[in-house]
């Protein structure tokens, strides 16, 4: 019983998300990103391949300066890791921050 709870506590998920809105991860999208990340108890890490930062910090997220097409690796660790990843995926890849995407 105890052991099962432990594994639940340490649930870990990760996903690669591509920035699809034309203007990239500027201030407003960065704000939406951390707002969602902060809804979850899990620890959330974001990496652009070079730096690895706290996904709940607008300072860190905006400093990634991720432009359209950048792929970010998101890692969530904690009791609601899966929900956190799902919510972030929806924001970044489906809603693309409610912003226009470049047409091919």
């Amino acid at each position, binding site marked *: 019983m105890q052991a099962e709870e432990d594994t639940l506590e340490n649930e870990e998920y990760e996903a690669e998300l591509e920035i699809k809105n034309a203007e990239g991860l500027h*201030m407003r999208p960065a704000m939406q990103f*951390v707002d969602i990340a902060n809804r979850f108890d899990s620890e959330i890490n974001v990496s652009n391949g070079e730096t690895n930062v706290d996904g709940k910090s607008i300072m860190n997220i*905006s400093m990634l300066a991720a432009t359209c097409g950048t792929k970010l690796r998101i890692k969530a660790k904690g009791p609601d890791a899966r929900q956190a990843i799902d919510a972030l995926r929806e924001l970044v890849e489906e809603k693309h921050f409610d912003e226009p995407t470049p*047409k091919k």
Partner: protein
Amino acid sequence: MEIKKGIAVSPGISIARSLIIDSEDYRIPRRQIKPSQRMIEIQRARNAFKDAIGELTRFESATDKPEGGKIKDIFAVHLRFLHDRSLRKKITDMIHSDLVTAEYAVSTVLREIASHFTKVKDAYISERAADIYDIERRLLTQLLGRKRENVEHLKSEVVIVARELSPTQTAGFDRKFVKGIASDAGGRTSHAAIVARSLGIPAVVALEDLTECTSVGDLVIVDGNRAIVIVNPDEQTIRQYEEYSKEFTELEHRLDAIRQKPAVTRDGVEITLLGNIEFPNEAEVVLEKGGAGIGLYRTEFLYLNTQTEPTEQDHYEAYAETVRVFADKPVVIRTLDLGADKYTQRKRFAPEPNPFLGLRSIRFCLQNLMLFKRQLRAILRVSVLGDVKIMFPLITNRHELMQAKMILHDVMEDLDEESIPYNRDMQVGIMVETPSAALTAHSLARDVDFFSIGTNDLTQYTLAVDRGNELVSMLYSTVDPAVLRLIRTVIQDAHKAQIDLSVCGEMASEPEYIMLLMGMGVRTISITSPMIPEIKQIIRSVTMEYCNNVARKVLGMDSERQISAYLRDAARKILPEAF
């Protein structure tokens, strides 16, 4: 009197004494603290965050106008930063390990972040450094207890002059007293511009060295319709502008009503009113003002705002944004008109002695094929998204036009090979803005789908006058008989060849000249969007018969002075309410 040209970012006219905002940053000296003081300094930093959040929250709820959405977004971002635990930790860690004061840590950490943003190549992201400086200032105000900028305690009307304005400074402006904004730096997308527009304060930015030629208390005119700022205007200019200003406010009220009505004369002749734009985000303003499309999309902004060469994708995205707004309405994209400015001059070892007669515009493009082709590819690619037309500027002879068309053809072939779709029948036109093009319009007309007369350059080149040079600017007049004769030639040749013709220079946005142009046969004009409602109002209150009459009379006159006086009278007679 000093006249400066910048970028108009918020329409309207204001005349007032200047208030120069010293945007010089607080310089925080590094002061060492004792280890025992660490907790005190850390607590001070925490309190500063708390108080800044409190202040900002009050600010935010005070901005509850519906058009305050953009300002709210900016403040919401600031709030997230103030709540950011990583940011706070960085600051308190620094106090702890480096034994420095709270203000020094705040300033150092935030400036590091700001300089990180400044280095980002993306113009949209790098402009956000202003946000970070603003947050820094906000926290320091709390820590140092310094009073807020004195613009909050204004008692008389002022024009704000500054090197650059932060969003907070701009949003704290009292609309009752702040009548205009003029800044050295900034662009259409800078915060000051966004805020000025949403507050409805006339503003002109990118004036380069305005702060250096203005002293506190100078009389300053900000003309957000014509992108001009005048420092210490003479009596005559003041009177002229007082008139403009009065007209503008009165018109604004009345014009709201006609925005969606067609631009048709009383005897049923329809005029197509298009907008001139410089930046993609102006496209919506054109629609709001009732424009039927874009008659002149200037594309130089892609080069002037950044240090790096824009990519084909940069071009494409900027154009696509505009074209999508207009769906099936026409968008005329003018190829790069660079020259006689920083971009081309920077690339030279020595500046050109006479840049306006030098390597500019299409000449520059034809000598920089990589750059030219990159833009042509992007324009062709967006041509499938709507009614896109391409226009070459500053054509002086047939050979140049043929060269430009050949290159366009080459690019089309490249796209064919790569199976990238584009509109094969995209219309190709030219700006007629040199006397040589006007005089050979009959021959140029055979190889283009449309002409657009650029009256500013046409006037300058015909009369050999630099309008910016005070010593000779009185010789500059678009209604000089020589210029009018050329314009008439172009119109007639376009009609004969049955190609489209429009006028996109400032002449078309002058209420006094619009009847003359219509009488001379112009049916399409493209003007800066704030002027669309006013020009439409005039079109709706005249008859074509009257315009024809005006044109006949004017073309028979041989002195500029006589023509100007006659046109002013004619306009007053038919439109007492608009003048």
